[in-house]
Every structure is written in C-alpha cells, then in structure tokens.
C-alpha cells in the first residue's frame, strides 16, 4: 500500500500546490467543459482582458467565453500539463517562440491561416513585425492580445533626486551609481531572482549590447558552441561584477516576481531601479497609482556598453502576448473563439483600455490616441521604442525549447549566485545545443 500512497501523495502534492496557487488567483465560473474558455495571466493587462471578456459575454450570451486568470510562473506549468492532457482552454495565452513551435509540432493548436485568408480584418490592424512571433513556418497560429512589452529600465525619480544622480546612460554610469545608492541605504536595483526570468533580462540586454542580436540568433539556430561566444562570457563577467558590487537588493534570490515585490521595492523607494518588461507599468499603476500620477516613475533604455557591437536602439522583451486556439476544442467553441478574436479583441474599446492602463498595443496608426491618455509621453516612448527598434528579440526562455530554457534559467541563477563562472556557464549551456 505504501508504494501507491507515496506516488499518489507526491502527485497529489504537486497537483495541490498548483491548484492552490492557481485557484487563489483564478476566478470562479462555470466548469471548463461547458462552452469556450480562456486562460490568461494576472497582473499586467489583466484588467483589459477581463473587461473585454465581460463585455463580450454581455453582448453574446449564447457564445460566452469563460476566462480564468493565473499567476505567471504557475500558469506556464499548468498550461503545458493541460495541453498535454488534451484539456486546454479554447483560447490559450502564450508568448510565441519555441513554446508555440512545440504546441504546433504536437498538433495542439489550430492553424489560423485559412481563417485569416477568409477574413483579413483579423490581422490587418497589427504591426507585421509583431505578428511574426505568432507564426510558425509561415503559418499563423496565434494573434497578439495585449501590449508590446520591451524591457525598460524603470527608476524612482525621488530616490535619484535624493542622492543627486542621473539615470545611467552607459554601463560605467550604472556601476558608478551602485556605491552611491548603497551609501544612501537604498538598494541600487530591485529584481525578483526566485522567478529566475528577471535575471535573464540582464543577460539578454548585455549580450545584445556587446555582440548584437547575431549572438543569440546563432544559439537559436543550434550552432555548436554558440554559448561560448565571447559576448556571452563578457556579459556574464559584467553580471557577476554587478552582483559582487552589491547592485541587487538584499535577498534578491528569494523575491518572486509573481508577488510584484520587485516593483514594490521600486515605488516604496527601497530600490532605485528595476529592469523589467513594460508590463510592470500597468502593475505599478494598479498598486501605486499616486506614484505614477505624481510623475515619480522614470524610465529609460538599457545602458550602452563601451565598444559593444549591438545597436543601442535594439530591445529585448516580448513583442506581445498571444491567443492561440486549441486544436482539441469543439468546432462550436472554435467558432466562438475566432469570432471573439475578430470582433471582441483589439477593437477600439479594447485598444483604449490597454492605453489607459499603460500598455501599448501592437496596432498600426494609434499614435493619435496617446494624447487623450494620462501618460502620452510614456506611451509614445514605448510605441516608438518598439516600432523603431532595429531588433526586437523575443525573451530567450520563450524563444528556446522549454528544455533548453530550463537549463538556461538554472545556470543563470547559479551565475548570479556566483556558484559557477562565466566559463562554466558557457560549457554547461553548450551541452544543451541540440543537433
């Protein structure tokens, strides 16, 4: 009896913790099997998506879509299990890239190309560069559902004024700021290290600034030894220098980004800067509206690195998040989902809600709308940054296969902890290159 107990206790434990995490954030509603459903993330653009489904359901009681929201880290594991078990929601929230490729390879998501040929208004509104991320081998499997998400360096203007500092333009500036803030008893940088992926943003930007986007393109193309590129090693040495200098907040390894403790450090003035995707803005606006209203939130691009080959206008992050349609859904549910995608999503009201929440949708020709919002400067900053960038690199953990991404995040965490050297990092990661 013990055998079975232990196995099932483990499984039950795994399931319980997921369910606990997940139900804590999910909304209750009708069962997942009755009609079309959608799963999305909490925080960021949650309000826009929630409002959109609410008004869709009001207007279309016969084809209502039941939406549930989950915390990011828990969602990524839950959705995979659900898809593997053919139990996915009709509309699957995703990031494009390597994960979408796997879903396509497994035949789990529907090819939307035929629908798009029939009704081109589905995609006409979007910026073509962003639509690319939802394509696999030229076919569209996913459509953007929220704002463009370049990674920005956010900072607390109050704190900068207090120590008499300017936002960093170069890496030297940044390193020089570290002792300055430490002396004032303020953490230079907030980061949610336990979630691991916030650490990846430092890696992505540094590698891009030093070696340009080609370095990662070689990795994504599975070129042998691609992780041993000098740019990767230099970036990792710089990361370890920053950690050793005390650049990151105390206990950064135990801060989970899901609980938004990282942005809380920024707006409470405990930390001066935060490198984070633009989804941090709606989150901060939601939890500390005064901080933004009083103009205390500063934002700038990632510092340049002297002698670096990468264009300083390059950005990393997520072009957007996407809705894919489950291939397992019934024809009726698929029809409802497609109808929602063409009429309920990214309509005028949707775009307006995104903008007023502080997100910039990847929709062409919306510059005129910025003037009517609370923060026209910020919105046009993000819009121009994203649409003018020579390279907009998808977050590596999404661009790579999940197996490689897991190894990357684990090795990067150990690098931040100084448990491995840049050389060991490259060696460990080179082993994950698939033939």
């Amino acid at each position, binding site marked *: *009896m*013990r*055998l*079975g*107990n*232990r*196995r*099932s*206790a*483990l499984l039950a*434990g*795994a399931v*319980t*913790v997921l369910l*606990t*995490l997940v139900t*804590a954030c999910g909304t209750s509603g009708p069962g997942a099997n009755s009609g079309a459903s959608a799963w999305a993330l909490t925080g960021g653009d949650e309000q826009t998506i929630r409002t959109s489904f609410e008004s869709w359901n009001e207007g279309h009681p016969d084809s209502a879509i039941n939406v549930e929201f989950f915390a990011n*880290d828990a969602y990524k*594991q839950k959705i*995979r*299990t659900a*898809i*593997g078990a053919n139990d996915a929601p009709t509309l699957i929230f995703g990031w494009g890239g390597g994960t979408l490729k*796997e*879903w396509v*390879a*497994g035949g*789990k998501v529907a090819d939307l190309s035929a629908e798009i040929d029939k009704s081109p208004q589905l995609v006409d509104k979007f910026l073509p560069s962003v639509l690319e991320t939802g394509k696999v081998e030229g076919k569209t499997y996913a459509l953007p559902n929220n704002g463009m998400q370049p990674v920005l360096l956010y900072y607390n203007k109050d704190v900068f004024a207090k120590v008499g500092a300017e936002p960093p333009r170069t890496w030297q500036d940044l390193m020089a700021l570290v002792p300055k803030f430490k002396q004032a008893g303020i*953490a230079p940088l907030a980061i949610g*290290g*336990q979630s691991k992926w916030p650490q990846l943003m430092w890696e992505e930007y540094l590698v891009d600034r030093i070696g340009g986007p080609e370095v990662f393109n070689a990795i994504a193309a599975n070129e042998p030894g691609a992780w041993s590129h000098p740019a990767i090693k230099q970036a990792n040495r710089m990361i370890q220098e920053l950690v050793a200098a005390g650049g990151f*907040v*105390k*206990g*950064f*390894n*135990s*801060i*989970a980004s899901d*609980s938004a*403790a990282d942005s*809380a*450090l920024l707006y409470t003035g*405990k930390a001066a800067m935060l490198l984070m995707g633009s989804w941090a803005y709606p989150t901060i606006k939601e939890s500390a509206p005064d901080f933004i209203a009083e103009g205390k939130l500063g934002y700038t691009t990632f510092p340049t690195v002297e002698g670096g080959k990468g264009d300083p206008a390059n950005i990393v992050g997520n072009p957007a998040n996407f809705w894919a349609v489950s291939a397992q859904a019934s024809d009726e549910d698929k029809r409802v989902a497609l109808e929602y995608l063409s009429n309920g999503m990214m309509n005028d009201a949707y775009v307006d809600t995104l903008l007023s929440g502080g997100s910039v949708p990847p929709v062409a020709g919306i510059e005129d709308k910025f003037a009517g919002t609370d923060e026209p400067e910020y919105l046009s900053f993000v819009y121009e940054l994203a649409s003018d960038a020579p390279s907009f690199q998808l977050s590596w953990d999404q661009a790579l296969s*999940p*197996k490689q991404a*897991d*190894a990357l995040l*684990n090795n990067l*965490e*150990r690098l931040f*902890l100084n*448990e491995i050297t840049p050389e060991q990092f490259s060696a460990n990661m080179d082993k994950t290159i698939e033939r």
Partner: protein
Amino acid sequence: MKTGAVETGRTGPHPVMAAPALAFFAVFALVPLGGVVVLSMLNWDGIGAMTWAGLANWASALRDPGTYHALWLSVQVMVLSWLVQTPISLLLGVLVAARGRYRAVLGVLYFLPMLLSSAAIAIAFKALLDPNFGMSLAFGAEWLSQDWLGGADLALYVVVFVIAWQFVPFHTLLYQAGVRQIPRSLYEAAEIDGAGRMRQFLHITLPQLRYTIITSSTLMLVGSLTYFDLVYVLTAGGPGEATRILPLDMYLHGFSANQMGLASVLAVILVGAGLALALGLSKLASFGRGSQLEGA
C-alpha cells in the same frame, strides 16, 4: 502446532472479502507505478510523441550530480526534521497531556498550524521572512532582516524550521495521546518510591512512549521524502539548488524542463528509497516487540 489448529478452526472473514481493496490497490497503485516505470524508459516532453529511450534516462539521472545532490538534501532534511521535531513534539505532548485549563488553551494554540494548508503556511512565512518587507519592517528590528531564504547556507535550515512548524502539532497530538494512555498507577508507585519528576519522565514516560516514538518517527522520516508543496512555494528549490530536494527535483525535471522520462526515473528512485526506509523502520520497530507494560 497449537496455533495452527486454532487457525484452521477459526471462522474469520473470508479472503474474498479483501478483493475490493486489492482491486483498488491494483488499479490505483500498482498500475500507475508500472506506468511510471515504463515512462522512465521513454522520452516524452509532455506534449509530443513518446519515443523509446531504453535505459538512457536512467543513465543520465545516475550520471547527473544533481540527482545525488537532491538525494543528499532529502536525507539532510529528513535527519534534521527528525532531530528538531521529535524532542519538541515529545516535550510538548507531555506538557499538553496533563490536565489543566491553561494547558488546554496552550494545546489549542499549538494545534493551529495543523489547520493551515502547506501553501498558505509557505506564503505566510515567505512574507514574514522577506528581508525588505517582512518581520524586520513589522517589528522595526534590523537584526531580523536576514537573507533568510536567499542565502544558500541558510535556506535549508529555514525550510527545516518551517516544516517543523507545520508538522510538530501533529506529532504533539500523537505524543499527547500516548502519554494519556500510560496507567496512573505507574506514577503513583514511582512517587511512593520517592522518584522525582525527571526520574519519572526518564524511567516511566519515555519507555512507555516507545511505540509512539516509533510510529511518530516512521511518519516523520517517510513523510519527509514527500515534502514538496511547502518547499515549492517557499523557495522553489532555490537559491540555486540549495533546497532542491528529491521530490522537487523530480517535479522540476518533469514540469519545468518537460523531461517526463527523467522525472519518472527520479520518481522510481523516490519510491525505492521510501520503501526501503519504511521496511527498515518496521524491522526496527518489531525488534524486541513486547507488551506495552513490559518493564513497568
């Protein structure tokens, strides 16, 4: 041969009556276990097709230093948990077992953690231990602002502490029940002989609790192999791999890296370790089995 005669003449329950239980056991325990063994020889990412891997997953799990690290962490957690929880719950159990209004109130307080789910406990402790927003801020005490969960050398002990906080009440309850079963007459006799409290505890309470200690220890040690939810929410195995105990290692291999085959190998190892431990403990427990009152 006397016992044999008794047995043949016994009109006990017919073996067939065990059939439903055995069937359930087969369907819900043996079949899945067999499934996991088969899965450990397949390559499967959870979504795509399954391909035969033979013993490749086993080889890579046994070659991976991470597996031994996780196993070693699990052993550490097991031993530390036993060392921390046993004396505390034994003493608390003895304390709460005696009659008295204040003891009853204390007893109720001690048992509160039993009512909370692991995830809730983990989230609460995570908030308390946050070096920037946690206890240090709440109580204005700077020394409380340690990097409790972010330091590789401290995190494991913090995890052991939180595990103890969660499970001590349960074991206290066991010991309380055990103590209440000890006949009063033993203590009365000891008092007449002039034994003090300490002597009574050492020479009556402890020996009488022998079987309770074995039961509680078995539950503690075997249970510690399945600690998962608390650690997952509290540290997610971090920082680095400082708290990546075997069940967590299995889960992360399966559901983060999507290597279901490799995760199944670890699951089988876990089953084997648990089985060996449980068998070993029951051997130990039956050693010198006798009456509860023996030696009184």
